């Protein structure tokens, strides 16, 4: 383990220990902020009780659906922007300013359109994530070295072969970054949407516990969510490292 990684773990442990100390000593109000050990105990109880399993699975399912749609359509969009420079000249400023717009204002409209069910959440996750995927795909396609495309021509490859054997593998690291962002954005949007207005799900249950002054449940669910998203991110990072170990040129 590197020195930086040890320090990182050390800082997190120290921070949690500090929180434990200040809440146990009642330096901050232990009713509004419960000790981390109590959070962990609550999270474990919530998980084994099975009370929230449906909500957790529902949120995961909704977010993954949004990820899938955003990844597929974002990829297609990126390829189209790359292949159609005119379309790109038209859309470029819009794409650049996309994340300056608070897309959550669209959520009520989606509820009106789809009704109060899973689909407005999938929609808001999709809308929030799809542009990141498209922009990263476009970026990846643009960075395929010209000399590789020339090599494809020397090998007399068809357009389809060129895409399959050269363009795709060469742009894979960027496409993967797009997928990683898509996961993060979709989760943020779905949980936030549930928080604002929905009848079930992870975010809804946190908001419900908050409104009911049920702090142990609220903190327990928050911790569970942190663990879920953290694990997902860790898995993606591990996959990315495997990918990069081969592809990145400078590092060995």
């Amino acid at each position, binding site marked *: 383990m590197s020195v930086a990684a040890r320090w990182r773990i050390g800082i997190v442990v120290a921070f949690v220990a500090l929180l434990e100390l200040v809440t146990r000593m009642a330096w901050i109000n232990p009713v509004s902020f419960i000790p981390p050990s109590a959070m962990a105990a609550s999270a474990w109880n919530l998980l084994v009780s099975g009370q929230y399993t449906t909500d957790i699975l529902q949120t995961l399912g909704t977010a993954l659906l949004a990820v899938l749609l955003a990844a597929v359509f974002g990829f297609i969009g990126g390829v189209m922007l790359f292949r159609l420079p005119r379309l790109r000249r038209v859309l470029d400023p819009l794409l650049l300013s996309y994340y300056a717009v608070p897309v959550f204002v669209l959520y009520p409209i989606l509820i009106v359109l789809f009704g109060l069910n899973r689909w407005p959440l999938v929609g808001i996750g999709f809308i929030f994530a799809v542009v990141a995927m498209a922009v990263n795909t476009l970026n990846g396609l643009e960075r395929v*070295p*010209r*000399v*590789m495309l*020339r*090599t494809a*021509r*020397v*090998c*007399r*490859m068809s357009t389809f*072969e060129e895409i399959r054997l*050269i363009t795709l*593998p*060469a742009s*894979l690291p960027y496409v993967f970054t797009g997928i990683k962002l898509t996961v993060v954005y979709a989760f943020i949007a779905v949980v936030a949407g549930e928080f604002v207005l929905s009848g079930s799900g992870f975010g809804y249950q946190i908001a419900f516990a908050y409104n009911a002054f049920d702090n142990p449940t609220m903190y327990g669910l928050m911790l569970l969510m942190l663990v879920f998203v953290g694990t997902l991110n860790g898995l993606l990072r591990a996959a990315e490292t495997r990918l990069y170990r*081969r*592809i*990145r*040129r*400078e*590092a*060995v």
Partner: protein
Amino acid sequence: MSAFARKNARMSVVPDQSSRTEGERIEARLTDVTRIYPGSGGKPPFHALGPVSLELRAGEFFSVVGPSGCGKSTLLDVLAGLNPASGGKVECEGREVGRQVPDGVAVVFQEDASFPWLNVFDNAAFAARRAGVPDSEVRERVEHALSFMGLKAFANAYPAQLSGGMRQRVCIARAMVVRPRLLLLDEPFGALDQQTRLLMGDETLKLWRDTGATVMLITHSIDEAVLLSDRIGVMSACPGRFIATIETNWPRMRDSQIATDTRFGELTAQVWGLLRAEALKALGSQT
């Protein structure tokens, strides 16, 4: 004379050419070739090349030297079918070159064209597999090419683990594995240091003798051109034309040791004498 008669008259010349000695068989021929990029957005058209005429004799090592930006690489691209000529005629093995790379042609570029997602073996095998060479044959050829290029121990390594010079050798091995009849080298050693370049030059000579291919090397290095070539084509500043072709008369068995030969100095001086004024012109047009 009718058009038909003219055609027949021209055709009657063909047997004469084929009856020439083996050393004079023509691998590729360029006749009054130009490349002019059409202007766009109010900019005038850009005349990048020519007119140039050139005959590459089968089996010879031909180098093209010229000032930077004179259209050397454009010449190679036009010959390889990577860039269409604006005028004139490009032929390879008697067939006109259009927008497709002709059969039996391999190209090594200046930039690193190794694929980072494939290991050295698969990189070297790539072009031959695309060309439909059977697997067992590909394996044999790749093994030969890798040991020839000193890469045998790195067959399972990825390009990220290799130095720049080794990656360029991977690209040369890839070209070698397709057994080209015409090998086009576009400043393949341009990004390497001087010592590596000299050694790579020797490797290239060995490769040239080993395969019997016709080689055309584009280079900005006069030394490299003189060391390696049977003939050197000297190009003018942009738009590039051939201002002279110099025969070196080196023996076929040769390596970088000939740099100690007095004739090496004479030839270098001769090429530089021709190039100096053109290089100055090119320098002036850039400022």
